[in-house]
């Protein structure tokens, strides 16, 4: 290496400064373009839902409505009230709520219990059982459709919200167990040992020692389960018909039933309504949402 030559150094300095500004601009350009790519469909959805069909025919995807009208939202939510076979979302939205709340609660609770047992009360073959849970995360829905249909039939809860709660709880258990197992394994065993010496039993330790420090993973799990169950279509469409259907099934039916003229504004309003709950969760608890996604993939 030659000793620093001032002139050469200066040239290096100037060119590297110029390069830096250039790359900075390129960086922002690319980031901006990607942002547009992800945001455009949302923009189109909202704008379309606010237009009248006349405006939709006249303009294009990007044109703004002349006047902001929530008529199509009303139609999507509660129907027009006259046509027979009028499909609208309100009852199905509540179906989804009635399905999601118990399914999330039960699967999270059982997952916590499983995770606790698998990490703090080690037994022979516990790792094998965990491996099976992990594998359960990957079983394609289709593989359990037929056996599940039989089981629901035998239990007498086919085509009911209760049936869907059971299906989602069972299928979700793999994920919730994995979340809690990976969280509890990082909690020192000494804490459990201390509690046992102090005289606490299996459930007392779980409720008094572990659950109070599980808030972060509970949030992650609840969000994961909520998003997954709310967004599910396959189980909903396979195990429920007509009035017991959850919202995603209703949305799809609504878009598919083309009794008369296609109403794209109503479709978009309906799609947006069906997406609102998960979007809200994402906006307000995005951090935990991302943590769930990454936890679900990189097993700790």
């Amino acid at each position, binding site marked *: 290496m030659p000793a620093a030559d001032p002139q050469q150094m200066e040239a290096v300095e100037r060119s590297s400064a110029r390069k830096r500004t250039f790359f900075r601009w390129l960086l922002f350009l690319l980031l901006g373009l990607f942002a547009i790519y992800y945001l455009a469909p949302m923009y189109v959805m909202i704008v379309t839902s606010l237009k009248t069909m006349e405006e939709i025919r006249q303009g294009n995807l990007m044109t703004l409505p002349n006047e902001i009208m929530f008529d199509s939202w009303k139609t999507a939510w509660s129907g027009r009230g006259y046509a027979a076979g009028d499909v609208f979302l309100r009852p199905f939205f509540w179906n989804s709520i009635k399905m999601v709340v118990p399914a999330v609660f039960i699967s999270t609770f059982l997952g916590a219990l499983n995770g606790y047992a698998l990490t703090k009360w080690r037994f022979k073959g516990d790792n094998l059982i965990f491996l099976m849970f992990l594998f359960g995360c990957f079983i394609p829905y289709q593989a359990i459709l037929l056996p599940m249909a039989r089981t629901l039939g035998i239990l007498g809860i086919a085509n009911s919200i209760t049936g869907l709660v059971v299906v989602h709880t069972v299928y979700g258990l793999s994920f919730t167990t994995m979340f809690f197992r990976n969280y509890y394994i990082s909690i020192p065993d000494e804490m459990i040992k201390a509690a046992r010496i102090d005289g606490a039993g299996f459930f007392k330790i779980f409720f008094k020692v572990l659950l109070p420090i599980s808030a972060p993973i509970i949030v992650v799990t609840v969000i994961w389960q909520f998003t997954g169950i709310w967004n599910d279509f396959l189980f909903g469409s396979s195990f429920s018909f007509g009035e017991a259907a959850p919202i995603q099934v209703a949305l799809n039916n609504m878009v598919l039933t083309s009794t008369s003229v296609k109403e794209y504004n109503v479709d978009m309003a309906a799609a947006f309504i069906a997406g609102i709950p998960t979007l809200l969760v994402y906006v307000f608890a995005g951090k935990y949402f991302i943590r769930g*996604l990454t936890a679900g993939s990189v097993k*700790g």
Partner: protein
Amino acid sequence: MLPRYEFWGINQHFRLWSHMRWSNAVENLLIFTILFVGICILIGIILSILLDQKIRAEGFLRTVYLYPMALSFIVTGTAWKWILNPTMGIQKLFRDWGFTDFTFDWLVNREMSIYTIVIAAVWQSSGFVMALFLAGLRSIDDEIIKAAKIDGAGLYSIYITIILPMLRPVFMSSIVILLHISIKSYDLVIALTAGGPGTSSDMPALFMTQMAFHRSEIGLASASAVMMFLTVLAIVVPYLYSELRRQDAGR
């Protein structure tokens, strides 16, 4: 549909594989998987590296890139079905902008319909790969990057020769998860093309539910479900095995 419990066994699999619709569905799945996984990984890597450059708006941009993941495939499909609408969608937009010959009719084009599913699926899932890679990038020891800078590596070669090879586990996880998504992809196809036009965008998952619930072909449905299950098994078991071994080595 009362099941008859007789051993019909392997015959169902012969029936399955000689079924035109099934081989068509498998072929579509292959096309879809290769494009979907490839493009998602590519976009995910690019976005994560761009976001890793100490951007002030990083939090906001990350939110924007990832939000489609919060939407269901049905919502995604409904929105894209409208955007890709051959008369009033993106085609009209470009014609209004002055490209009067612009034609975009993939949604109703037998040759191209499968690619519309790729477009929508990439939109929905690529942010997820970005999040995985960003988490991976953030877990890399800062000193390694400093060392490479002092060693004289430019940003490009730091990423290519040092950082990306360190993210091999992230590649593995992303690929396995994307493969899994693509094998079971059903909702998006239903909402976007319903397998059409004709059966041009049919997929195994679609085939299976149609056989099970609409055609009462429980045998074919089961055979196809078993096929899907075995495929996932073939991908996931080695993955979980290597993942667990890696963890044991790390302990």
